[in-house]
């Protein structure tokens, strides 16, 4: 495994806090800093495409991913992303073919995967206790293998966004117009859903099933209030998600706070959202909206 220690050793020099002297905190920070740009970029489209419910369904498929891992005696680090990916692609395929509305289709998959996961998990009381990790997230136990997987995912995702951000906006505006105007709508939708599924599953480790959608939509929602253009929205989302993760992690490690990291990160992001709403309100009043 290539060396990550160089990065970890840099952290206490850049952030001279007592809590940052510990290796698990350094790993957690690197993990969150890798996750921040991913949730920011993907979140912009989650908000523009109204896919918050989709992200929710994928995050809940984490239960089933864990359950499948138990059945086949495979590490959940493999079964969760693979199962999440399959659920994501299955939802997009059904949406494209079915006459049912999108939220109904997602709702059906959502219930199915959660029920299956709970059914398997409820058979074993020890596992039921372990499931709590996935409900609230556990960024502090992140390992080097996870970090390498996130580096690879960030690279692929950045390539996709650099290549497809504009076309994705086109599809977000109206898929039929985009398709007639020679945008490969289906390909973009499948690739996006696949990448989003991976991002959601990695976020589950960081902030837990209950807060994963927040991690995707709050920075993007705040960015929407701050930005005046589609290009600017990305920069704002990056700023909000990166600062929220770093500040959230630092606060959660303070003795006076002692809070769960995932929840603290989301609270900082929510603070950003409140500020952005104020900015939007003032701007609206000035322009007489």
């Amino acid at each position, binding site marked *: 495994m290539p060396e990550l220690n160089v990065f970890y050793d840099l952290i206490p020099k850049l952030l001279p806090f007592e809590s940052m002297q510990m290796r698990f905190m350094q790993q957690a920070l690197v993990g969150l800093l890798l996750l921040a740009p991913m949730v920011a970029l993907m979140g912009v489209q989650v908000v*523009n495409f*109204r896919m918050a419910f989709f992200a929710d369904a994928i995050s809940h498929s984490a239960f089933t991913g864990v359950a499948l891992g138990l059945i086949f005696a495979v590490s959940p680090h493999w079964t969760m992303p693979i199962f999440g990916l399959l659920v994501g692609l299955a939802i997009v395929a059904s949406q494209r073919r079915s*006459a049912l509305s999108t939220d109904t289709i997602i709702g059906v998959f959502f219930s199915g995967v959660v029920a299956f996961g709970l059914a398997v998990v409820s058979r074993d009381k020890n596992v039921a206790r372990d499931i709590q990790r996935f409900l609230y997230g556990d960024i502090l136990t992140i390992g080097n293998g996870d970090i390498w997987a996130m580096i690879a995912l960030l690279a692929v995702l950045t390539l996709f*966004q*650099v*290549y497809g*951000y*504009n*076309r994705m*906006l*086109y599809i*977000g*505006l*109206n898929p*039929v*117009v*985009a*398709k*007639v*105007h*020679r*945008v490969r709508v289906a390909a973009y939708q499948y690739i996006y859903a696949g990448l989003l599924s991976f991002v959601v599953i990695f976020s589950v480790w960081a902030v837990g099933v209950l807060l994963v959608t927040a991690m995707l939509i709050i920075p993007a929602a705040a960015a*929407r209030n701050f*930005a*005046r*253009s*589609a*290009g*600017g*929205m*990305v*920069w704002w989302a990056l700023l909000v998600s990166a600062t929220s993760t770093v500040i959230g992690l630092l606060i959660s490690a303070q003795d006076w706070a002692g809070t769960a990291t995932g929840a603290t990160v989301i609270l900082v992001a929510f603070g950003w959202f409140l500020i952005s709403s104020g900015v939007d309100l003032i701007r609206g009043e000035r322009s007489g909206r």
Partner: protein
Amino acid sequence: MAFKSVTVALGGKTILDSVSARVPQGSCTAIVGPNGAGKTTMLLALLGEVPYTGGIRISRAGEDRQLRIGYVPQRLQFDRGMPLTVLELMVTGWQRSPLWFGVRRRYRERAMELLRSVKVDGLEKRRIGALSGGEIQRVLLALALGQEPDLLVLDEPASGVDFQGEHVFCELLDKMRCERGFTQLMVSHDLPTVTHHATHVICLNRRVAAEGPPREVLTAETLTAIFGLHMGLVDSRALPNGKCSCSSPCCTRGSDHA
């Protein structure tokens, strides 16, 4: 372009029943008919958005390449809160480098030229959510023209636009069709617009009731057959010389050739 025995059935209900019609090259063809006649479905079949049986041939005399289509939808359903400016929308289909690195100069110039041509220059920095119905239709027209289409497809192009705006929109389209030489296919249930601008009309009510130049097709008998009773609205004798009566000089010249 020709439709040959196109049938569309959705959920066990026949929406189009063996529709055969043609769209002459360079024409302004209008599909007219009452609500529920299958007008929009006919366009969607053409665009490959609904499954159909039969055949739709789109080709141009003496050319092998696949023809480019520009599409202006009926009232665009979109998220009005999206921070997307008119200029950004115009370049999303052309520019590869992501918009967060800004709009490239050559695409900006091309977009501005198109916006000027549909008379909405000055709006490029506005959010699309802040535009009026008429402005959005024009921006969408500019977007479709940016495809340099051989065939421009419009679904109720002037819906949500007041009468004056509608007239201006159609005049603009007529002028552009003559300048750029594309074929225009539009859906309308607004007969005055059709009689004023179309050079070829397809009367549709699940089946094709009649097809041809407006004066020949828009007779009291046909209109009563497809729309029902109240059809004193269009008097075919009012159509000058059986040609389209658009005031744009190139349009009347174009229809003389039809």
